[in-house]
């Protein structure tokens, strides 16, 4: 059995994000199989402020030991924003400017010192996701035992030298999908790497009728889950949905769950319903109750939510700008992809007009998830990959 530490910027109840959820499931899963698992993380919950909300120190999350370290939140937002703008303009930054940009978001010096002191106590240190101080600053401390689970997607940040350096400088890289793997090869000379995938839990049952009743949802609806942010495609989803209901007179509502300010235009407040943050069981019920799941994000490295949707036998409508999601939809035959708002509207129209066909697509998606992305399979793969470190 290995002694493993996951190094991740946020961990705990109420932390939203695919990679964060994944790390938690993996840590718990490996601990349940008898590995000695620690999570080295910050006291922050919010990824905008990085304010310390949990106390620093050691706590338990089931079988997992969680060590929290205080963040030093951003001190110079203007500096950070100016670098951010240059990165998005495709400008190549000096190495020191890159580091200054990363360092000005938040930093965790006590975590760095802990890893510097204790790295050799662990067989492996698993860093995830890639774009945070906790990964890019700390991964070089003990490269011989560092595994990077980057959760890459094609965005300007991945071309930063510090990111490419982290990919090249780990002992191993674990990818979640083939498009992510190919992107990794385009970025850097990779060390030993595996396609370990990711997984979702299969709920024992769903309660779609109860969900509709509890939330007063009388009309059929399309679900959109996750962070309501520009980078996750939320504004485009609102725009595309509103165009579709006007253009085709669709009798569908859009239900949104997750974090962030939804900024629903007043004219649409009867058709776009924000339910905010829901617990895991209720999220599963939401997927089952929906006619379709809308995934507008172009920045996905795995997309747990489309897997959860397919498990609930709900068809997926996804933005093809995300190579990973398009790849899942094509491989599974369970999802429709769109390239613009008009295609999104046509997808919604198809779901409204041909529910039987949508159900058949969803069934193919469910079979795809059960064949490839369940926790026992993923944990088997992770354990096999960890053997070379123990």
């Amino acid at each position, binding site marked *: 059995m290995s002694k493993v530490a996951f190094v991740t910027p946020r961990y705990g109840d109420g932390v939203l994000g695919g990679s964060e959820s994944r790390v938690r499931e993996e840590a718990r899963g490996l601990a349940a199989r008898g590995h000695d698992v620690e999570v080295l993380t910050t006291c922050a919950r919010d990824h905008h402020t990085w304010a310390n909300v949990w106390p620093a120190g050691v706590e338990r999350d089931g079988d997992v030991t969680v060590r929290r370290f205080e963040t030093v939140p951003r001190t110079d937002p203007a500096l950070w924003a100016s670098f951010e*703008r240059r990165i998005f303009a495709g400008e190549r930054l000096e190495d020191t400017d890159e580091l200054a940009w990363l360092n000005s978001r938040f930093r965790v010096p006590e975590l760095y010192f802990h890893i510097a002191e204790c790295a050799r106590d662990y067989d492996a240190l698993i860093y995830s996701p890639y774009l945070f101080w906790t990964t890019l600053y700390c991964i070089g401390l003990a490269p011989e035992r560092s595994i990077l689970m980057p959760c890459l*997607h094609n965005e300007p940040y991945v071309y930063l030298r510090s990111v490419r350096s982290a990919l090249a400088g780990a002992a191993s890289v674990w990818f979640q999908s083939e498009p992510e793997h190919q992107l990794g090869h385009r970025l850097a000379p990779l060390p030993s790497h595996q396609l370990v995938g990711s997984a979702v839990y299969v709920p024992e049952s769903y309660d779609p009728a109860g969900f509709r009743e509890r939330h007063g949802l009388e009309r059929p609806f399309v679900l959109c889950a996750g962070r309501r942010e520009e980078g996750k495609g939320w504004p485009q989803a609102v725009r595309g949905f509103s165009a579709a209901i006007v253009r085709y007179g669709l009798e569908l509502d859009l239900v949104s769950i997750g974090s962030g300010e939804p900024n629903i235009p007043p004219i649409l407040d009867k058709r776009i319903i924000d339910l905010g943050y829901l617990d895991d069981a209720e999220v599963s019920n939401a997927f089952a109750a929906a006619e379709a799941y809308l995934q507008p994000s172009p920045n996905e490295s795995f997309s747990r939510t489309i897997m959860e949707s397919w498990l609930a036998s709900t068809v997926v409508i996804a933005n093809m*700008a995300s190579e990973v999601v398009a790849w899942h939809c094509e491989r599974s035959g369970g999802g429709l992809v769109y390239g613009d708002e008009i295609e999104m509207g046509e997808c919604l129209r198809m779901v409204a007009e041909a529910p039987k066909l949508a159900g058949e697509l969803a069934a193919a998606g469910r079979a795809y998830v059960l064949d490839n992305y369940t926790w026992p399979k993923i944990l088997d793969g992770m354990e096999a990959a960890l053997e070379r470190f123990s």
Partner: protein
Amino acid sequence: MRVLVVGSLPPPVTDRSRGLLAEVIRRRAEGAAVEVLSPTDYSVAHSYLEMPGPASAVEIALAARGADMVIVQLQPGFPFDEGAGRAGRAVGLGVLTTALRSVRGEVTVRLHSIHDLPHGVGGRAAEALWAVASHIDVGDEETLSRLVALVGDAVKDKISLAVAPLPIGHLRDPGAELSGDATLDMVTATVRARAAAERRSVLADPVDAAGRVHARPRVALWEWSPHPGAGVPDWGSATPFLPARGSVLTRAARAALYAAESRSLTRPLARGARIARRVARQV
């Protein structure tokens, strides 16, 4: 016990930064609460020196209040600019010495290498600094012997070799890892760490080891790239970004501050104004 460390930890990983990291780790192991104040705004630290060159001594004096021990590392760019002449050096060392005189606890001055102090370790300003130090830690034998030869007997007893640099990253001690009694695990760890360093070095070129040219950035946002593979739009050169919040007066003040910071002559004033604003807010 509260210890203030002034100097640059990694990154970048150098013998000097690893040496200071080893010092931090040692003090933490002794139970001290260590706070790091760094002259470089990208190195690991709790806080950073905002004022350039000699003016930073004021910040050090403020930060050192309440510290039981202060450890200051002399390094290129601190306490005077790398390109400074003898006068600049004398001023930089002089104000640092003045700042350290106000420290109520022990003062350790670190000099990793003789080359880290331009114009040598001698001179009146340097001697005053050695005199105010309770301990002087040096990184190698050469620096130790040069320093011992230059300073008087009263100071000699303070000088000692610093703790060995922390073997982080690929900069581990090959003798320890690959000696005859090394285990397979130790050798494997060394091989992996060196391979990681080698792969990172390949990134110095825009073309990777297999001869492939790295792709240019692609922005996968809806408006710009409706299909995978679309290119980044040409936005021209980047312009400084200023937050749009605040009144007209606030925005004008921010713009003036930014303009002042972009010129070397007015930069100290601008940074001073920024610090004053921060201090005022804290108060």
